[in-house]
């Protein structure tokens, strides 16, 4: 398009020039033609024409030249301007070409040129901006690098340092190798190899140990702890993180090493590790010793720990035996005089003794170690609470250097072991004391026949002994932790009213009073117990009431005996009063001669009979007394039961006759040689038959059957009397017991108790079968003791 228009313009310009030339020629020709017509000489005409032609051509040329000059000026000015613009761009000046009036094509060229120039200017400005940014970033990076305390060193593949930060400069500036202030461009460092900077003697690191080399080889970040040595031989530890820097092709071109001086940290860590180890060992010893209270071997274990930590061979402990003034090996019981020897000296001085190489100084070796070839030893005093209690002795068959730390550990271990051993002794003493006290207390607590339970200040039961459990029918597991009023709840003697409301004896004891009283308790099985309670406050060591204790005894039997004794006294008194009435009254009347003759004789017989009755009662009482005191013994002799029954019938005849009771007797032939106490068996039979008479209606029948069954002699007394209420049967042989029928009859309640004892003395027992209204059979079963020749 542009080219087409330019050609078009050039064509127009040529056309214009041609036209002008043609017009000029035409004008000249017409003039010459006019002159020919007018008859001019041809030659002259030719010459004139030539002159005219030359003139015209000259004019034409001149005109064309002017025109061309004009036209070329019009065309070439913009081109010139373009040229200038291009030169300007070449010089780096991006200007805009100003052409106020030009041809279209050139204007387009200039416009394009201007656009190109503007674009270039923009790009250039952007580049400049980016360059500034890069510079800023570089400055920032340098600032950051310089701000980092760690040393940063950038190393190229030739192992030359290309960049260091300020920290690295400070580190190495005092050497000749790095100036105080270095930069990336510093010529001073460009040819320096890293190992010459880090290791002043310039020895190259081993390849395996060189972080930069490793990064170049592997292309990966490498971390290591490196030791640098300065020219004075001082070693510094560095924690190095070496990272690769890649070029655009992915090749490692630099290694950035960040070096942190951890010399102090390493030293602290080393110190810490050492302390830690020391503490671990001491802690381990402390842990072992804490078990030592219950385990004597723990002491040995603790010694092993110390021995192990110090690298010794073995050791032992010597303790002062105050009684014998000797040192006794704690674990082997071997003895050493407490005198002039190493352990004794150490104990007396309280100072640790250390011999790193004693080379046969046998004074320092306990005699039973002398054959072990000990070369080094240490002896540490063991300190108790307020005095030295012994010494710890450690030895080795090799010389041994003891550091200051070893001394510290030994001192600490000695103190701990000393306290532990003293603790063991105290614990053992306390344990023995406690075992004795507690065992005794438990034994007493659970062995006493009295029931005992304790409560705290809130009436919660805190303990209960075995006797209380049995008496109350409770389990201590069930009641401990419960309120006493909920599980026990004593009652007023003889009444159902609970004592817990206002008369609680324990509440008085909680106020500090001791109190004794009677109370009843109803068991879960319904049995009622009579208890004698004694309540006291429980006080702690400062005298503060922390609860109360109730000690109680089951006095149910005693109460029953008391009741029966009271009843007995009443009965005896009644029984005594009746015969005494005969004696007193009839004697009085006889003395006043109010009766005479046969009547008087009858009176006297009555007096005698009632006197005998009194005597019999006294005999029964005495028998019971003897029976209870164990003085009742048998006088065995062969018994003729037929004769015995004959005598008894005679004795009881009047009673039998009065009630018209028939007494039948059947005696087996196999009882003839029975050896027994005749008087006591007579008493037994009289008691049983008298009971049958007393508890039978008139006209009843009593049958006495005496027979042998194997090695037993059986005496059966059966009647057709009133019978015995079933609830009375279990109690019939109890002293002073009188059944429901007792109110109707006279008696002391001693007869059947005596019968049972007589049967027991004969190796037997007594039993009852009875039906109310039908009669009773009493069976006495005795061990058949025959004559020796039978």
């Amino acid at each position: 398009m542009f080219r087409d228009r330019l050609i078009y313009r050039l064509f127009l310009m040529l056309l214009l020039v041609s036209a002008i030339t043609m017009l000029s020629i035409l004008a000249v020709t017409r003039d010459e033609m006019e002159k020919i017509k007018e008859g001019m000489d041809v030659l002259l005409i030719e010459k004139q024409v030539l002159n005219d032609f030359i003139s015209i051509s000259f004019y034409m040329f001149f005109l064309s030249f002017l025109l061309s000059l004009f036209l070329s000026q019009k065309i070439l000015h913009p081109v010139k301007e373009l040229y200038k613009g291009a030169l300007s761009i070449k010089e780096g000046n991006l200007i805009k070409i100003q052409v106020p009036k030009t041809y279209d094509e050139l204007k387009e060229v200039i416009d394009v040129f201007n656009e190109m120039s503007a674009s270039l200017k923009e790009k250039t400005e952007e580049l400049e901006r980016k360059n500034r940014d890069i510079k800023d970033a570089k400055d920032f990076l340098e600032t950051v690098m310089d701000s980092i305390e760690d040393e940063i060193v950038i190393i190229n593949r030739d192992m030359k340092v290309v960049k260091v930060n300020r920290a690295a400069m400070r580190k190495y500036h005092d050497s000749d190798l790095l100036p105080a202030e270095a930069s990336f461009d510093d010529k001073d460092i460009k040819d320096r190899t890293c190992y010459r900077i880090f290791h002043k003697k310039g020895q190259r690191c081993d390849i395996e140990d060189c972080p930069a080399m490793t990064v170049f080889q592997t292309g990966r970040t490498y971390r290591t702890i490196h030791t640098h040595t300065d020219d004075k031989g001082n070693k510094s530890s560095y924690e190095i993180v070496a990272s690769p820097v890649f070029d655009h092709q992915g090749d490692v071109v630099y290694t950035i090493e960040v070096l942190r001086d951890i010399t102090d940290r390493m030293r602290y860590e080393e110190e810490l590790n050492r302390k830690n180890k020391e503490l671990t060992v001491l802690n381990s010893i402390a842990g072992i010793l804490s078990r030592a209270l219950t385990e004597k071997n723990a002491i040995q274990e603790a010694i092993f720990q110390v021995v192990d930590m110090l690298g010794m061979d073995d050791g032992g402990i010597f303790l002062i035996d105050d009684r014998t003034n000797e040192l006794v090996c704690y674990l082997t019981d071997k003895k050493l005089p407490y005198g002039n020897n190493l352990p004794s000296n150490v104990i007396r001085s309280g100072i640790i003794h250390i011999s790193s190489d004693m080379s046969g100084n046998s004074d320092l070796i306990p005699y039973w170690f002398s054959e072990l070839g000990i070369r080094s030893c240490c002896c540490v005093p063991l300190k108790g609470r307020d005095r030295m209690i012994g010494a710890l002795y450690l030895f080795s068959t090799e010389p041994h250097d003891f550091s200051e730390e070893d001394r510290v550990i030994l001192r600490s271990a000695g103190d701990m072991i000393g306290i532990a051993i003293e603790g063991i002794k105290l614990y053992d003493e306390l344990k023995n004391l406690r075992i004795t006290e507690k065992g005794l207390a438990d034994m007493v607590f659970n062995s006493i026949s009295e029931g005992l339970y304790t409560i705290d200040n809130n009436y919660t039961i805190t303990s209960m002994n075995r006797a209380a459990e049995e008496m109350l029918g409770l389990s201590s597991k069930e009641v401990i932790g419960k309120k006493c009023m909920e599980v026990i709840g004593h009652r007023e003697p003889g009444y159902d009213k609970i004592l817990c409301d206002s008369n609680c004896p324990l509440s008085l004891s909680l106020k500090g009073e001791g109190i004794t009283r009677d109370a009843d308790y109803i068991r879960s099985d319904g049995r009622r117990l009579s208890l004698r309670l004694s309540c006291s406050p429980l006080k702690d060591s400062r005298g503060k009431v922390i609860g109360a204790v109730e000690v109680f005894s089951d006095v149910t039997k005693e109460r029953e005996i008391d009741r029966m004794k009271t009843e007995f006294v009443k009965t005896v008194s009644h029984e005594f009063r009746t015969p005494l009435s005969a004696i007193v009254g009839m004697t009085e009347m006889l003395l006043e001669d109010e009766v005479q003759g046969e009547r008087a004789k009858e009176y006297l017989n009555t007096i005698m009979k009632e006197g005998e009755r009194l005597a019999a009662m006294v005999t029964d009482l005495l028998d019971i007394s003897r029976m209870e005191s164990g003085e009742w013994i048998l006088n065995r002799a062969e018994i003729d039961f037929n004769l015995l029954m004959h005598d008894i019938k005679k004795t009881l005849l009047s009673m039998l006759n009065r009630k018209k009771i028939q007494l039948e007797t059947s005696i087996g032939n196999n009882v003839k040689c029975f050896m027994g106490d005749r008087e006591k068996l007579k008493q037994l039979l009289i008691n049983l038959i008298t009971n049958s008479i007393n508890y039978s209606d008139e006209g009843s029948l009593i049958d006495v059957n005496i027979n042998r069954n194997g090695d037993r002699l059986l005496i059966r007394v059966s009647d057709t009397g009133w019978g015995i209420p079933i609830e009375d049967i279990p109690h019939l042989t109890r002293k002073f017991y009188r059944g429901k029928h007792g109110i109707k009859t006279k008696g002391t309640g001693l007869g059947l108790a005596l019968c049972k004892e007589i049967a027991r003395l004969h190796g037997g027992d007594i039993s009852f079968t009875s039906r109310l209204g039908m009669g009773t059979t009493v069976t006495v079963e005795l061990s058949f003791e025959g004559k020796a020749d039978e």
Partner: protein
Amino acid sequence: MSKVIVIDDEPFVLMMIEDKLRRAGIQVITLRESINALPVIKKERPDLIILDWMMPELSGLDLCKMIKSDIELKDIPIFMLTAKGQDTDKQLGLKSGAIQYITKPFSPKALLEMVKKFLDRGEGI
């Protein structure tokens, strides 16, 4: 002539009292069984009853209560003559209606004095 019924299961007591009172001119009826006493009392209408406590089948105390609850017999005075010497027994006996409580052993002479004294104060001999 005053009439006294004596009830006791001990024959010698009956014998002794009968002898003593009869010699003093008092008519005495003796009974050994309390269980059969009530009809006799009703029939005889005694001036005084001397009653033992401890007797089989029917105690003197119960008999006393029966007499005192009988509209015809309730006014007959009763002496309780018993071996039961406790104070509580005495209270119980007097509460049941007896006007005199005498404990065994007793003096027949003293008993006669008490009987005479009572009968003199009442109907007289």
